[in-house]
């Protein structure tokens, strides 16, 4: 039994190594240092979004607002920057806008108890609409060098995006592993009633998780725009599916209560290398999406089956 639990924990890692070896042997130019660094750099956006998504999925929610918010925050910051405002002020403004959207998510989920998938869909669409309005549907570009450096620069030969991903990984890791808040988040996904009986405010936890998720999304959006040196008002749509896929492939349980940030990181790297290798092979992004969609549905199905079987097994024991 113990070995099975252990196996479940490293399942994502096995997937990663297997996918990596298969890809490396088939795809030319995959195993070069510059391409590998590129894979990590491309994965950083998905990875940062997936950190927030992991916490949301653990409390049995889902964040569908990524598609809109990933464009809205950088749109706000970008317009401020192009008007000649200080970079730090502009970035702070963009992140603040993202946080307020997360606040709405938290408000509707906790206080009005609206299902998370509707709430976040609404907030995502509103932010997409707002980012379209702000510049009449056009994209903006030509940002100051110091902002572009954030996305494309390197420090000791490693892209700054990778450091940022590491920082977010550590933040998520520390919250979940070493704080009482992390324990409460995991408990909320597992058994809400017990948490309420302990006298812990479920509302506060939900607020924190959704605001944190939108913080991750905003930073990821700002990073993406720094990498591209443009803000496109619908740039987020491609990352919505990928960040959910990263969590699911990594092994975060869609039913809530089980998951860790390292799983999401592994998942993000799998998705990143998958996309990269399919691009190198010349597979069209639409085909890739079909593939990712099928993977998500099958993994959620399989983990559901495993859970059902485990439950039956424990019922027999008790």
């Amino acid at each position: 039994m113990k070995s099975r639990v252990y196996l479940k924990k490293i399942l994502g890692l096995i997937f990663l190594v297997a996918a990596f070896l298969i890809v490396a042997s088939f795809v030319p130019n995959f195993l070069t240092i510059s391409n590998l660094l590129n894979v990590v750099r491309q994965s950083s956006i998905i990875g940062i979004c997936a950190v927030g998504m992991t916490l949301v999925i653990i409390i049995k929610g889902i964040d569908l607002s990524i598609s809109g918010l990933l464009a809205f925050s950088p749109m706000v910051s970008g317009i401020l920057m192009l008007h000649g405002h200080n970079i730090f002020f502009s970035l702070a403004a963009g992140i603040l806008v993202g946080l307020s959207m997360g606040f709405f998510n938290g408000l509707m989920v906790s206080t009005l108890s609206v299902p998370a998938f509707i709430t976040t869909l609404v907030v995502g669409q509103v932010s997409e609409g707002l980012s379209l309005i702000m510049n009449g549907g056009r994209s903006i570009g030509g940002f100051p060098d110091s902002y572009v450096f954030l996305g494309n620069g390197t420090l000791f030969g490693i892209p700054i995006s990778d450091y940022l991903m590491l920082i977010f990984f550590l933040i998520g890791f520390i919250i979940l592993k070493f704080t009482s808040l992390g324990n409460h988040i995991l408990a909320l996904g597992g058994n809400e009633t017990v948490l309420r009986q302990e006298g812990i405010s479920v509302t506060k936890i939900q607020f924190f998780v959704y605001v944190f998720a939108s913080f991750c999304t905003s930073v990821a959006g700002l990073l993406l725009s720094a990498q591209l040196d443009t803000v496109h008002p619908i740039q987020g749509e491609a990352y919505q599916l990928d960040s959910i896929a990263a969590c699911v492939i990594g092994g975060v349980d869609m039913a809530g209560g089980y998951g860790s940030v390292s799983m999401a990181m592994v998942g993000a790297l799998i998705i990143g290398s998958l996309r990269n290798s399919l691009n190198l092979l010349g597979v069209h992004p639409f085909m890739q999406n079909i593939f990712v969609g099928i993977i998500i549905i099958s993994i959620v199905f399989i983990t559901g089956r495993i859970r059902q079987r485990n439950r039956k097994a424990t019922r027999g024991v008790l």
Partner: protein
Amino acid sequence: MNALLSSIRYFAKKNGSFLIFLILAIIASIAVPNFFALDNFAIIIKQSAIPLIACIGMTLVLMTGGIDLSMGYIVGFASITSGLLAKIYQWPIPAVVLATFIVGIAFGSLNGFIIQFMKVPAFITTLGSGYIIYGLAQIVSQGSIVSRLPEGFLAIGRTEMLGLPSSVFIAAVVLLIFYIIINKGIFGRSLRAFGYNAKAAEVSGVPISKINVSVYIASGLLAALAGMLFTIRVNAAQPNMGGGNFNFEVITAAIVGGTSLFGGVGSITGTLFGVLSIKIIENCINLMGISYHLYMAVQGVIILIAIIFENVKNKAL
């Protein structure tokens, strides 16, 4: 006096969406120039007809407590397949219509099967299948748009009767059929029971798996019909038709129409007024010459208001 108040309360509780529609129409007539005209009403009815067809499907799905995020992409797939079959392959028109329906039924039953028998949550299933269907539509179309479709095909939705195109009458027939199914038969009661409490319904002998699958089949079929009629209206078949924005519009209309997000509550007449209400708002935004993108943001605010309204209504009335 009290009896009058309580009867007003009862009316408001039962006909919330009609009241929203009425209030919006009155405000628009006063505030927006050119709104109160027969031509403009005809435009609103024309624009409401096709979303209404899809919205009836979404209402059924929401009543079970599920959601169909693949609807907009089925619209796109149905659009491109019907256009290709009618123009490039030159199939006879009834065969094109039949093929479009089969496409919708196939995607709908796939969704229903995965949700009911593989126990994958509805929003994950339909989010994933939406991306899959969109990818397939792009592959089928090869990135091209099929325009200038055959006359016989266009006649399905464009034949003028009483000054309105036939797509309006198709929508009316669909509305009537589903009104009868939901309100007069055993299916509607079973659907409500399933939406309120799936476990209790199952124990009471309601065939829940049949209902859950058939709801997604209906939603896929109606989405395909809507996609075909959209194609006919704009005389161009393209995979980008519908999409995420269409999903959102349809969900907004259903919620404004009084469909509960928690399942079990919803009505076909409510959906009718929900669609009309949001189309009035769209119409006003167009008439006042404000950016169309504002419509998306406004829809979000409308959903929020509708949810708060529902919460208040449940507590106060």
